[in-house]
C-alpha cells in the first residue's frame, strides 16, 4: 500500500498546478477560487517508490463549517473518505478512484506568499493535527513583484517545518519539493513540539511580522493597475462589453475560418473522395453502401459533422475560455455583473458555471459545487440545461443557420438568453432560500502562460475527440441504419402529429429528435439536409436549443442532485422545447 500525502491550502494558491507537476497528470487548474471541487488522487514516483498524492479542494480553515472543510478534516484523519477520480468531466483515465483512504503520512501545505496571514492560519490548524508537514511557499514570484519579501528561513525556524519557496507554474522549486517529500516519508519521525495549542490571529500576525516584509511603499504593478481598472464600473463595464464581443468574435470568426479554409476543404477535397472510391470498390451499390456513404453515410457525415463542423468551434471556444480562466478576468466580470444577477437570485460568481456551460454542461454542473447555496446551484443548473447550448451544439447552429439566415441565428441566441432570465426569475420566486450575500476575494490578474494554455486546450480537444466525436459517429451510423432500413418512415409516421402538424417540420425531423437524446448537436445537424424554409429553420433551431440535454448530462444531474431533479429537467426541457416550437410555428402561420 503506497503512502498517502495530502496537498492542502487556501483556495486558488496553485495546489492543482503543483499536483500536475508532481504526478504528471492533468487536473483542471484556473485562476479563480473553487476550480477543484473534487478530491483527486494521483501517483507520483519518488526514488522508485510510489506515493499517493491527493489534491484536496481549497479550504480556509479546518473549522468544518461547510461540507468541503468537513471532508478535508475527514481526510486528515484517514478512514472512509469520499474520493472521486478525475479533474475534467467524465474523469481522467489516469487518476485513480480511491474509496478508502489510509491515514495520510504527511501533508504538503501550500502557502500563498502574497496572502501569508490566511495561509498561516490554516497551516497552524493543520499543524495541530500532528502530522508531518512540508510548507510550500508558492507564488513567490508574484509576491516579489509586489515588493513583499518573505524570509523562508525564519519562517522555517519559527514553525519548525521545512519551507520550500516555489513558483508552480514555471516548475521552480519542484525538484526540491520531491526530495523533501521522499525524505520525510523515509524518516517517518516527527516532533510535534512546535504545534500550537491554540490557533489565533494574534499568533498568525506575530509570525507574519517576523517573516514578512514590504520592500517599499505602495508601488502598483502594471498588472495590478489593469486588474483594478477592469474591476471598476468605469471603465470596467464598457471594457467588459468589448471583451465579451472580442471573445464572441474569436469563437465564431476563428471557428468559421478554420472550418471554411482548412477543415472542410481538407475533408471534402482530400478525404471523402478516397473514402467514396474505396467503399464503391468494396461494397456493392444498395442499402449497405448507403449506410457508409449515402445521405446519412456515417463515413461521410459521421466524419464531416464532428471534425469539420464542430471541431473548429471546440478549438476556438476553448482557446478563448482557457485564456479567460487563467487570466483571472472571470471573477472580475462576475463582480461587475453581481448587482444585476442579484436581482434574479444569483451572484456574480454564477457567470463562471454559465460560461463553462457554453463548452459542456457537465463541467458547468460540477463547478456549481463551489457556489454558496443549493438554491443558486439549482437555478444555474436549470438555466444551463435548458438554454445554454454546448459548444458542439453552437457549432451545429452556426453550420445550420449562418449560411441561410443570420437573423434567425441571432434570434435563437437572444431567445436563449431571454429564456435563461425567465427561468432564473421563476425559480428565484419558487425556491426557498436566503438571498445571496456576496463576499469573495478577487484574484490577481495574470497573463496566462503559453505552454499552460496550450496544454489545457489540447486536453480539452482530446477530450472532445473521445467523449464527443465518437458518440457523434455512432449517432450518425444509427441514423444511417434507420434511414436505409425504412424504420425512419415508420418513426416519421409515428411522430408526425407532433413533428409535422404541431411543429410544421418535415417528417424526417423525427430522427434528429431521437438522436438528440444521445448528443445535443444531433438535434440540429440533420436539419441541414432537409431544405427547410426560414420559419422551419427557426422552429427547428428553437426545439433543438431547448430540447433534452444529452444522456451524459442527465447522468451527471442524477449523480450531483437526484433522479427526481434529472427527471424534472428532462420533462421541463422536452415540454418547453415542443411547446415553444409549436407556438412559434402556429403564431407565425397566422401572419404568413
Amino acid at each position, binding site marked *: 500500500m503506497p503512502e498517502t500525502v495530502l496537498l492542502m491550502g*487556501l483556495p486558488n494558491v496553485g495546489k492543482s498546478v503543483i499536483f500536475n507537476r508532481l504526478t504528471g497528470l492533468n487536473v483542471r487548474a484556473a485562476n479563480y477560487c473553487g476550480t477543484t471541487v473534487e478530491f483527486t488522487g494521483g501517483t507520483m514516483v519518488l526514488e522508485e517508490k510510489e506515493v499517493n498524492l491527493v489534491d484536496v479542494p481549497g479550504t*480556509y*480553515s479546518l*473549522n468544518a*463549517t461547510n461540507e468541503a472543510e468537513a471532508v478535508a478534516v475527514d481526510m486528515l484523519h484517514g478512514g472512509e473518505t469520499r474520493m472521486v477520480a478525475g479533474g475534467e468531466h467524465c474523469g481522467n483515465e489516469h487518476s485513480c478512484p480511491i474509496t478508502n483512504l489510509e491515514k495520510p503520512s504527511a501533508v504538503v501545505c501550500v502557502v500563498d506568499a*502574497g*496572502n501569508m*496571514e*490566511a495561509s498561516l*492560519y490554516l497551516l497552524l490548524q493543520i499543524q495541530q493535527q500532528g502530522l508531518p508537514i512540508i510548507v510550500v511557499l508558492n507564488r513567490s514570484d508574484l509576491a516579489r513583484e*509586489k515588493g*513583499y519579501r518573505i524570509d523562508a528561513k525564519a519562517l522555517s525556524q519559527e514553525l519548525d517545518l521545512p519551507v520550500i519557496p516555489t513558483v508552480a507554474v514555471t516548475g521552480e522549486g519542484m525538484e526540491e519539493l520531491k526530495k523533501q517529500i521522499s525524505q520525510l516519508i523515509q524518516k517517518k519521525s516527527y516532533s510535534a513540539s512546535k504545534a500550537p495549542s491554540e490557533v489565533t*490571529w494574534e499568533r498568525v500576525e506575530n509570525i507574519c511580522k517576523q517573516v514578512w516584509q514590504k520592500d517599499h511603499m*505602495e508601488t502598483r504593478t502594471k498588472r495590478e493597475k489593469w*486588474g*483594478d481598472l477592469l*474591476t*471598476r*464600473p468605469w471603465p470596467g*463595464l464598457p471594457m467588459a462589453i468589448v471583451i465579451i464581443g472580442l471573445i464572441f468574435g474569436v469563437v465564431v470568426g476563428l471557428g468559421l475560418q478554420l472550418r471554411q479554409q482548412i477543415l472542410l476543404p481538407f475533408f471534402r477535397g482530400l478525404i471523402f473522395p478516397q473514402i467514396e472510391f474505396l467503399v464503391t470498390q468494396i461494397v456493392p451499390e444498395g442499402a449497405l453502401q448507403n449506410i457508409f456513404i449515402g445521405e446519412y453515410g456515417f463515413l461521410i457525415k459521421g466524419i464531416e459533422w464532428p471534425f469539420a463542423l464542430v471541431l473548429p468551434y471546440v478549438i476556438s471556444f476553448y482557446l478563448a475560455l482557457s485564456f479567460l480562466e487563467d487570466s483571472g478576468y472571470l471573477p472580475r466580470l462576475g*463582480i*461587475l*455583473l*453581481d*448587482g*444585476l444577477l*442579484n*436581482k434574479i437570485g444569483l451572484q*456574480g460568481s454564477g457567470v463562471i458555471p454559465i460560461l463553462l456551460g457554453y463548452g459542456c454542461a457537465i463541467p458547468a454542473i460540477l463547478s456549481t459545487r463551489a457556489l454558496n447555496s443549493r438554491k443558486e446551484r439549482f437555478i444555474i443548473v436549470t438555466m444551463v440545461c435548458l438554454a445554454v447550448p454546448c459548444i458542439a451544439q453552437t457549432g451545429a447552429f452556426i453550420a445550420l443557420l449562418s449560411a441561410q439566415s443570420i437573423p434567425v441565428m441571432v434570434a435563437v441566441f437572444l431567445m436563449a438568453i431571454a429564456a435563461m432570465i425567465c427561468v432564473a426569475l421563476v425559480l428565484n420566486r419558487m425556491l426557498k432560500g*436566503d*438571498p*445571496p*450575500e*456576496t*463576499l*469573495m*476575494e*478577487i484574484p490577481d490578474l495574470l497573463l496566462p502562460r503559453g505552454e499552460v494554455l496550450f496544454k489545457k486546450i489540447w486536453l480539452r480537444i482530446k477530450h472532445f475527440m473521445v467523449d464527443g466525436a465518437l458518440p457523434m459517429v455512432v449517432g450518425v451510423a444509427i441514423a444511417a441504419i434507420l434511414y436505409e432500413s425504412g424504420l425512419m418512415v415508420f418513426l416519421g409516421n409515428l411522430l408526425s402529429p407532433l413533428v409535422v402538424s404541431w411543429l410544421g417540420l418535415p417528417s424526417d425531423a423525427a430522427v434528429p429528435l431521437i438522436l438528440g437524446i444521445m448528443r445535443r448537436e444531433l438535434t440540429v445537424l440533420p436539419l441541414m439536409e432537409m431544405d427547410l424554409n426560414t420559419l422551419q429553420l427557426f422552429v427547428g433551431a428553437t426545439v433543438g436549443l431547448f430540447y433534452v440535454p444529452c444522456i451524459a448530462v442527465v447522468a451527471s444531474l442524477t449523480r450531483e442532485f437526484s433522479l427526481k431533479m434529472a427527471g424534472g429537467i428532462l420533462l421541463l426541457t422536452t415540454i418547453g422545447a415542443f411547446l415553444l416550437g409549436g407556438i412559434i410555428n402556429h403564431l407565425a402561420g397566422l401572419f404568413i
Partner: protein
Amino acid sequence: MKPLKKIRPNNNSENKFSSFSFQEPQNESETSLNNLPTGEEGIISRLPDNDMLTFLGLRHHKVVQVVTRQKFGGPIIVKTNGRYVALSRSLARQIYINKNSCGQAVM
C-alpha cells in the same frame, strides 16, 4: 461635517432581507464601511461574527480602503493588506470603520 447619526444607507430596500439591525455609530469618527467614501481608508473597529470575513483579511484593527462601488446595487470592493475583496452592501453596512486621520485618497 454632517452629524454621522443621520447617515443611513441610501437604499433601504437592499437591506430588507438582512437580519442585521442597524446600529448607530458610536462616536464621531466611526462610520460604516458602506458609508466610507470611495478612495478613503479607515481602521476596522467593529464587525459581525463571520469567519469568512476574517479569512479574507477583514479583522479588527485592519486598515481597509474602499476601491470602488459597483453599479446596480452590486458589491463594494475594498483593499486590505494588498488584497482585493468584494463584499455586498449589506455586509459592508455591518462593518464599522474608524476613519484614518491621515487617510488619503488613492485613485
